[in-house]
Structure formats: structure tokens, C-alpha cells
């Protein structure tokens, strides 16, 4: 999608830069851009800023965050987590300490598929975990992520911990291969 928009910006089609900025504002912020905002974004593009930087800026603005928070409805999330936990009152909660490149994603996907009406927090990172309301964290039947051993202390008593290890050579090679194809980790970024 981004590549498509970028090709439009390079003048390869009928979309103008103004139209692309307007589409981003309407899609992400649900409004038309105000004249100063439009001018600033256009100036950034004129100066050679890549389009993904503009999208990133809008997606990380205070306005976008506040809109997401209102739309996300944290009380409803807590209610859902609590209700799911009360449906399985006698089950131990599972914390999967997922070490990168050990095959944990397959395991988490397998567990998620089995979870049924249980509330699961998977693929979360430490930045997410420390920001989650305790009721959500403590109601989850499954918490999985690259969260390390310390994360156990945030989970309810009785939570069982699981982890998978891999032969170190294979893991290092896999991690290296992963970094090469992950845009967020590439050496160039």
C-alpha cells in the first residue's frame, strides 16, 4: 500500500501529494487536514521526507493516540478479560516465556487456536506489559511474549511458566537470518 502511494507521489499517476495527505488524515484521524498541517506535511515531502515518515508521524500523534484510546474502550477490554477468566476458574494461567527464534511462535499460535473463549495476551512486548491494566494481565489465561523471567512477578500466583530452548548455533543463525529480512531490524535502519 505504502509502495503504491509512494509511486503516486513520484508522479506516476493522477494522485497529487495533497490528495495523498488528505487520504491519510481522513483514514487515520477521520478528518480533513487543517491548512497548517497540510502545508507542513507537503513541505516535508517536498524536502524529500519518505512517505512512511509522514504516516508514522500521524500514527504517533497525540490526536491519533487519544482517538485510539477512546475507540479501544479499555473498560470493555477489562470486562472481557474478567468474564473469560471466570469461565475457567480452576485453570492455571500459562506464561510462555518466548525466547526469540526458538519456534515459540508456532507454539503460541497452536495454543491460541486451542484457547476457545479464554482470554489470551500473545505477541506482547515489555513496553505493552508494563502499560496494561492489572485486571487484564491477571485475567489472561495465556500470556506470551519475549518478556523474560521478571515478567512472572506481574502475573497471578499459581501461573505456570513454560519456555522452549534451541540449540544455540541454530538459534543464532536463525536470528541472523531474521534480522536480514525484518525491516525494523535491518542494519540500514
Amino acid at each position, binding site marked *: 500500500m505504502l509502495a503504491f502511494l509512494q509511486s503516486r507521489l513520484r508522479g506516476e499517476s493522477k494522485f497529487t501529494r495533497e490528495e495523498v495527505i488528505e487520504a491519510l488524515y481522513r483514514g487515520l484521524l477521520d478528518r480533513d487536514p487543517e491548512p497548517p498541517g497540510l502545508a507542513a506535511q507537503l513541505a516535508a515531502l517536498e524536502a524529500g521526507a519518505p512517505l512512511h515518515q509522514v504516516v508514522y508521524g500521524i500514527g504517533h500523534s497525540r490526536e491519533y493516540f487519544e482517538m485510539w484510546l477512546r475507540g479501544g474502550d479499555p473498560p470493555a477490554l477489562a470486562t472481557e478479560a474478567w468474564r473469560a477468566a471466570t469461565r475457567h476458574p480452576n485453570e492455571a494461567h500459562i506464561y510462555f516465556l518466548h525466547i526469540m*527464534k526458538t519456534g515459540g511462535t*508456532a507454539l503460541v499460535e497452536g495454543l491460541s487456536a486451542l484457547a476457545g473463549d479464554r482470554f489470551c495476551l500473545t505477541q506482547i*512486548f515489555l513496553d505493552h506489559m508494563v502499560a496494561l491494566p492489572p485486571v487484564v494481565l491477571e485475567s489472561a489465561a495465556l500470556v506470551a511474549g519475549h518478556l523474560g*523471567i521478571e515478567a512472572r512477578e506481574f502475573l497471578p500466583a499459581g501461573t505456570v511458566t513454560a519456555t*522452549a530452548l534451541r*540449540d544455540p548455533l541454530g*538459534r543464532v543463525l536463525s536470528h541472523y537470518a531474521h*534480522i536480514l529480512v525484518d525491516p525494523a531490524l535491518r542494519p540500514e*535502519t
Partner: protein
Amino acid sequence: MCFPTTPISWWTRHSAQRLKGLSLEEFVHSRRWRPLSENFQARNLVHRVGLYGVWRTQSPEQMLAELDPAIRPADPRLPLQASFDRGPLGISEADLRDASLAALDSIEYVGVSERLAVLFSSLSRIWGVENPPPLPVANVSIHRLDPSGVPRRLREEILEANAVALALYEQARVRADAAASTQAGRRAVQRQSAPAAAPATTASSGVERASDPGGRNRSRGRAGTAAPWPSRLDRWGLVLAVALSVVVVGLDLILSQQFILTHLLVIGPCIALFTTRWPATAAIVVAAVIAGNLLAASDGVWDTFTDLSGLITLTVVSMTATAAAAAMARSRVRQPQARLYPS
């Protein structure tokens, strides 16, 4: 000393350097990447970043700013995670070994990557699932490196830098083997107490798959999530396809020359395609074409326009159904690869 190398392993070693600007040597040796390549598994078991203090006494951005710039990620979208993954451990290797082995001991369920189904089976029992389905294939690097293609010197350096991780892995293997034995014993008892259990259930169980690496590779590597034998739904689909084909043949024989029903034989392949078992679909196609020819002879329309149009329609639709079944089978085993963050 010279080491034999295959073209593929050479490519995996060298193409990365050319294409992305990061060689395996750099990944292993540079300060920037070393936290990820040196005893990373041990780090996950011992590293503490003071989570209770986050957003109380310090912000993740502050924590990241305190990191050595040489190891700080250029795009810190998850600063706390980056601090955990890359921050200094601050303990000696001996202490790391003791602490990580103790931490591993404190973990209730420990598995190893090559026997992940055993761990999956153990965790599934917590949720009351005795025989979980096969694990999906997920997040497998598309540029997998063959360890045998890595120069011996570099391989030894990696292992040396991961001596603690190796000790952890050996301990994890012992525990995974014990868990597999326990599960195998439990399943044997189940089989004895329920001899009429469906073979498909036991064939797809995690323990058997895990104890048969060849079978596991076949299932995960080539066939992906597809079961080695047709599922119950697939079997019924194939039975229905054959049954309806037989009905069409029977009707045509009964109605003789009053009605030519050759075209209707497409129903078999069309139903079979939804099972996504292309060999079975192809077998039904062959049977349908042979039956179409026999019916044409029986109906006395052999080598007429009616016969040819019917057979051409049957052949085209049937072959399309076989191709569609093969395409559906391929798309069924494909897994999403794209992820924003490593996992």
C-alpha cells in the same frame, strides 16, 4: 585449511553480506549485535530491568538513553524491550550459568524447538485437551542458513560465545525427553483402555510426531499443516464424490439412450476438489473420464458430437478441479511470514 562448501551454503554466507550490509561474522563479533548472538537464551532467563520501576521511577526512553550508543537500536519503537534485549547483564559467565540454570529449574514446563509438540501437548493438558492437533508452521525464516555451511572457525566461536546457552539447552533436552516418555506412556495406557480409538487421532498426536523427526519434517516441511491421512470431513467428501459418480453412471445405464448423462460426471471431481486432496481428485477424474467413454459406447453415441462435447466438458472441468484442489492445498499450508518485530 579448506572446507568443502555447497553453492547454496556459499550463497547463504555471502549474499547477505552483499545485499544487506551485515555478514554473519559481523553479527557474531560486533558489539552492536553481540547481545543477540551471545548467550541470548540465558539472558532471557536472568536479565532484570526493574519492571516495577518503569513508569514509576523511570521511563523506558530514559532507560534506553542510558544504553551504550554502540548497542542502542537505531529505531527504538519499543525502548523497554530494547533495553531488555540489549542492555548489559553485568554478571560473569559463571554467575550467568548458575543463575540461568537455577531459573530454568524454576520453570514448570521446558521444551526444545525440535520437540515442540511435546511441550504443546503438556500445555494443552492444562486446558483439558489430551490430543492437540499438529502445530502450525509459523515465523520460519525464509533465508535459513545451513549450519554445516558456516566456516568451522565461526561455528566454534558461536558455540564458545554460547557456552551457557548450550548448558541450558542440554538440560532442556533432558527435561523434554522425560516429558515425551511420560506422554508416550500415558498414551499407551489410553490406547490399551480404549483400543477402538481412531487411528487418525493417535497418528496426529504430538508425541508420535516428535519422536519421529522424519515424519515431523515431512508433515511440517512439505505438507505443512495438512494431515498425512484425510480428515473425517475429507473422507466423507471423497465418499460423496464417488457415490454421486456411481449414481450418475447407474442412472445413465438405466435410462440408456433416452438421456445422455456424461456431462453430469463432472460432479465427482467438483466435489472432490473441496477436500483439497489433489491426488484423490485426479483419481476420480481418471475414473470419470473412463466411465464417460464406457457410457458413450453403452449409449451408442461413441465418436459423435454428443460424445465428444460431453467428454471435452468432462475433461476440462475435471482437470480444472484437480488444479484447483492442488492450488487450495498449497494455499492451505502457507503461513503468514511478515511481522513487524522479531518473534
